[in-house]
């Protein structure tokens, strides 16, 4: 009897299946299973080699004291690096910065992206041009975005945005070097670059919504807000969750734009966990401790992604 999970087993006529030609032998070597494995093996090897093995290596390094500035002291340290990070003020600071950056950044992207999608869902003169302009930031490299904001937009007195702020009487500010403003500034930079992604997903999702409930809502709802709240947003929920998942993972792994804009400063004001890992491992050359920090980062990303997926499954 055929195994139900065979590659071509979609319940079609027996004679139409390619497997019919290979019935001469029941051995694994001539089976569909082998063929399937052969087909996926190049991708699998690449995925394991370039994705899984480095992660396993990362986790294994985290149990060692490895410091390139003093290799003579390298040794097995068990959970030593993890115990060290519990008492590391910079680690907790970077966790806090990462949380603020991620939560506020993703929430703003969803809200602004949805507002833009609803606005540009309508057809009016110039809507195509406006859509194109809105998605431009997303095609820039994050390092370019960081440099752009640092030099041309936020430089006190000379950057375009600071100049506008100064000109309208709001004063000139040290956007990237003031401890309180710097975090706000990098969140704004992140939102500016990645809201277009949310906008695109939401716009596509709006176009794919069934027409009947929307027409019914238009008759039944008293206001546009009710229509939005009771009909459109529930229908859009899967898209919102997908955007939230993808953008949260991306925000947790942000690096280049912040590095270019502030390098994590002033002090540690914008040092998210990723930057702290970079500084520890590649500037301070503490590979073991940096690996422990990297493992924590990995765990956080996996847990957050799993929670989101579980939420999505429950919704489905």
């Amino acid at each position: 009897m055929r195994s139900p999970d065979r590659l071509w087993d979609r319940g079609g006529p027996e004679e139409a299946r390619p497997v019919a030609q290979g019935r001469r032998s029941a051995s694994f070597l001539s089976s569909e299973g082998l063929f399937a494995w052969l087909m996926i093996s190049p991708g699998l090897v690449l995925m394991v080699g370039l994705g899984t093995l480095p992660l396993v290596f990362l986790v294994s390094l985290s149990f060692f004291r490895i410091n390139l500035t003093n290799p003579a002291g390298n040794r097995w340290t068990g959970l030593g690096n993890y115990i060290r990070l519990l008492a590391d003020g910079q680690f907790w600071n970077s966790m806090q910065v990462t949380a603020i950056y991620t939560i506020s950044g993703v929430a703003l992207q969803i809200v602004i992206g949805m507002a833009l999608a609803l606005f540009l869902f309508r057809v009016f003169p110039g809507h195509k041009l406006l859509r194109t302009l809105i998605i431009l930031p997303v095609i820039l490299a994050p390092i370019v975005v960081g440099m752009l904001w640092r030099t041309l937009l936020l430089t006190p007195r000379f950057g375009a945005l600071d100049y506008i702020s100064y000109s309208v009487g709001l004063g000139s500010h040290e956007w990237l070097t003031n401890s309180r403003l710097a975090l706000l500034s990098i969140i704004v930079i992140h939102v500016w670059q990645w809201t277009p992604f949310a906008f695109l997903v939401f716009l596509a999702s709006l176009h794919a919504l069934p027409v009947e409930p929307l027409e019914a809502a238009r008759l039944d709802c008293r206001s546009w807000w009710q229509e939005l709240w009771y009909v459109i947003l529930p229908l859009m929920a899967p898209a919102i969750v997908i955007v939230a998942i993808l953008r949260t993972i991306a925000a947790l792994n942000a690096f280049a734009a912040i590095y270019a804009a502030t390098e994590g400063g002033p002090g540690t004001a914008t040092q998210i966990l990723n930057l702290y890992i970079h500084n520890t491992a590649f500037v301070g050359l503490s590979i073991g401790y940096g690996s422990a920090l990297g493992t924590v980062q990995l765990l956080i990303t996996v847990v957050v992604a799993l929670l989101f997926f579980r939420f999505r499954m429950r919704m489905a």
Partner: protein
Amino acid sequence: MKRKRIDRPSRRKFLGASAAGIGVAMTSGLPSIWRGRSQAYAAAPAAKVVDPELAEFEKAGIDWKQASGEQITVMVIPSLFFRVAQEFSPQFTKLTGVQVTWQVIPPVQMREKHVLDLSTKTGQFATVSTDPTYYPLFATNNWVEELKPYLDNPALTNKEWLDLKDIFPIWLEAASYNGKLYGLPYDGEATLLLYRSDLYGAKNIAVPQTFDDLLEAARRLHDPANNFFGGNFGYHIRLINMYIWPSIFRAYGGEWFDKAGNPTVNSKQSIDATSYYVEFLTKYGPPGVANWNWPESLDAFVTGRLAQTFIGSATVPVAANPAKSQVVGKFGVGRWPKGPAGKRVTSVWNWSFPINKAISPKAKKATWLWIQWMASKPMQIQTSYGYKGKEESRSGVNRVSMWDDERYRKTVAFAPGFADTVLTSIREDTDIDWRPRIPEWPELANILGLQLHRALAKQATPKEALDEANVKIAELMKR
């Protein structure tokens, strides 16, 4: 089956081929064989024809072709002095038969790649432009070759021709660790005060001789309402601040460690030095200065927004270039002011080249030839006062004799007394302990640089920041 047809040469083909054969023979080897036979009894063999471009290098008398066919990759920072050197790369290939691939990467990223390459022993880079503070790390880990065997091997080096005694001794010392030499310097600099001489003159301000003078000059020239600022120290962004702060720290009498080896970066001298640094920048620095590196500082100076700054002497040509600067003829250079400890302290800075231990023996030979070529006097001349290309002239040559040579001094007359100021700074103000010469420096700098940045951003007082740095450095040294 068809028989294979054998083509018989026609008369025309035969005559043509014969004529061509004789022609080739005449224009190539045969006549010289005949001439050689007829001149077999001449007194001496014909002199080797030397390419004029290579003549100065051939004087070394070594076999420059001994690593011919080898390919090496070198990594350098983006800078005028390496751009000029890169223009001469085909000359090196012509001289040695060694192909050189250049990778140009900003310093912070370059150091990261370099350390990764050395520590993983991948041998990706045969040599990398290295600053002095990395030699203890490289030597301790046995990642780079000691150069003495190369220098002592007459097949590889003509010591007289290379003339190491003509290279600034302190630069060679900085490229050494525990008395062993690991790198040869190509270019270097002293950190100088760059000031607006026209404004100093207008307000009758003398060139600052002490830190108090410097603060006073900044106070008198500071005019933020007109976007003009009293000054800065050039390099302030996190980690890069460790290029400038050590000069203030040492001029205040700060010591890195006590006699027992305990860190002392939170000493009274250190706190005073940091307080001065923070006060100066907070009161008279441009807004956002904590995020500035030398390009921003130089840009502000050459566009007339900054009264004074500190800058590596190799960068001064930009301020004297009318295409890039609005202050040509309006600026001067000075030595670091004296600190409360009564001494001036400038950076020990040069870019030197070590040999990666992980590469093959032949590649090591090729690399040594390249390093020798870069450090040699003919190369230093052709990239400075002998240079006829499109870039500015170099201002950081490694040869003491060139700094005394009028031809060189003329090309580096960027400001009155430039050559003398650099020379005096290197000779008198350079402090070999400007930074501690220990393998742990990268991590120590990471810790201290961060805490200084916190102090500048007012996230901590100088004392709090330095106390925290001291605790962490103590932990580091124990590990």
